[in-house]
């Protein structure tokens, strides 16, 4: 309905030879403009933009001021002036303002250590009014590992989007990923976590009445401690049958107390990783 109305106004304005308006060909978003007009007497001014339509009474022949709030959205605008002798129209372009905002998407939020090109960081460049800045702009990406120096690189945006792919470090811990342009400086945290357990080993010792089976500190192949809470499965086979316990790692090790009858075989696994096998002799 609004489109039909706009088309009718513009069509009517173009057919009628009347008071004219001369807006600037291009404007930056968020700036007010003054549109000179010709003719005389009372007139009606229409401003049609990508997300708005405005109508007000003006004097033909005077300068028409358009507030900055009315020109915040980038796109093609049409100004129409209708006086007693007819209507005239003119189109002008509102361009995005200087880049000053970023929408920064980083994925994933957790990543195993030593994973090549696993982290994706994408920045969407916008001006203060959320208009995408489509012309190429330099975005500064930075990475700061825990207890490490910041590394940065510039990437030009294409159609408002700049991106970079990163590999995770060999050491676990949070990494700060940043993207900045203008006054915008967005930071995201990526947790670099230990990979699968490596060289999973168990040892057994006698407790008061049972055996204590304990892992060595559980680490991945890069030497990072596997996080507490990670489940380690112990399996015991002895004269009484089979026993299994899923135990979460606590302070770096997983520990379980098992009663053992006669000769027993004990195995350990975490996820799809298996560890060593123990044979112990308990009471009869």
């Amino acid at each position, binding site marked *: 309905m609004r489109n039909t109305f706009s088309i009718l106004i513009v069509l009517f304005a173009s057919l009628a030879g009347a008071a004219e308006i001369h807006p600037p060909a291009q404007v930056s978003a968020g700036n007010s403009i003054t549109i000179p007009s010709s003719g005389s007497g009372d007139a009606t001014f229409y401003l049609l933009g990508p997300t708005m339509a405005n109508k007000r009474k003006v004097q033909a022949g005077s300068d028409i001021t358009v507030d900055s709030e009315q020109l915040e959205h980038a796109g093609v605008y049409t100004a129409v002036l209708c006086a007693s002798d007819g209507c005239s129209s003119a189109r002008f372009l509102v361009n995005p303002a200087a880049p000053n905002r970023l929408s920064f998407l980083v994925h994933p*939020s957790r990543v195993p250590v030593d994973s090549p090109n696993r982290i994706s960081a994408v920045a969407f460049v916008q001006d203060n009014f959320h208009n995408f800045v489509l012309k190429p702009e330099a975005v500064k990406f930075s990475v700061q590992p825990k207890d490490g120096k910041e590394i940065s690189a510039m990437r030009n945006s294409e159609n408002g989007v700049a991106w970079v792919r990163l590999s995770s470090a060999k050491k676990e811990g949070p990494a700060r990923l940043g993207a900045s342009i203008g006054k915008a400086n967005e930071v995201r945290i990526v947790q670099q976590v230990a990979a699968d357990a490596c060289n999973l080993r168990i040892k057994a010792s006698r407790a008061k009445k049972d055996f204590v089976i304990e892992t060595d500190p559980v680490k991945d192949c890069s030497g990072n401690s596997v996080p507490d809470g990670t489940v380690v499965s112990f399996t015991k086979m002895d004269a009484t049958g089979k026993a299994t316990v899923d135990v979460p790692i606590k302070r770096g090790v997983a520990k379980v107390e098992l009663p053992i009858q006669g000769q027993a075989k004990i195995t350990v696994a975490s996820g799809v990783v298996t560890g060593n096998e123990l044979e112990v002799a308990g009471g009869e």
Partner: protein
Amino acid sequence: MKRVLPLTLAVLTVALIIIAWFQSGGVERRALQSASTPQQAARLMLSQIQSHKFDAAYNRLANRNEVDENSFIREFTGSYGSLLTISSLEGFDVGVLHATDEEATVRAKFHYATGVGPLDDTRDLTLQRTGDTWKVVWPVDSRAKLPPQVIPVNYLRWDVISRGSSDDWGVQNVDSPQVRIVSMNAIQRPDSVVLVGEVVNEDSVPAYVNVGATLLGPNDEELAQESSFDKIAHTLLPRQVSPYRIDFPNMRLDKIKNVRMDAKALLIAASADPVIAIDQQKLETDALGKKVLSGKLTNQSGQIVSIPHVIAAYYDSNGKVIWVSDGYVAQALLPQTPVPFAVDLPPDVAKNVQTYRVIVNHFELTT
């Protein structure tokens, strides 16, 4: 003639009342009042339990001096939020195993209706003759009670703060956990197609996991879609592996060209506590002649586990998962107190089982 009609109606009414009495089990009820045989005595006591006449049932025990009444009642009504607290005794069967003039053994099969489906319990009860009647010798609970104490628990707990609704677009959210289906095997059963396998949480955070499957026909059309429902441990801690089973009733394997698997994972708050040990696992034949995997669950922490759920994966000699069975345990797991469990296994599968792995899932009743 005037009296014929009222008389006929009166006779008819009496006849209908007698028929109704028979129809509603009047004969059985009458028989249940008696305890002159071991079977009658057991049926009488169980019928009193079924109708929640626990005092009357307790009074029929031969060893009341050894059995606490409240403990006896709790065996049927449950405690600590166990499965029996949301169950009712729907029915029972009683059969005499052997009997002498003074003592008899009867096998009682209890059929419960529970919040998670039917639950069967089988017990062999000893009965003794006392004068003209028989009384049940109720098994005395010999489990050692854990003395009051403080058990320090310092396992990890994970809490999650997600992106708020007022946060700007592009503000980073925490990703869903990475889970992976590590095995899948499609099996033709007499009345269904069953998918069994295992799924692992590969992430460093806990995951709420559900495995779904879609069966595709010769032209890639969808034949059926199902999920693992409760045949899986939904909450998986980091690197934890759970078996899963998906049943497709009334489906034939030869009609299926492809299977589309889908493992969905959500990040959830979870605790690494409680740790439950599964001891004395054995594949055996139970008293009813069924193949079962039995064992004992021991809650190693201080928190009471209300409803334990046992899930077992069975492997053949090639290490392939050939079956997954599960079962709920009626009793709550008190700290450090072993509780027996048994899960069924089809006999044709049992002969091919080389090894197995059992995990325990648990549910709590929230008020």
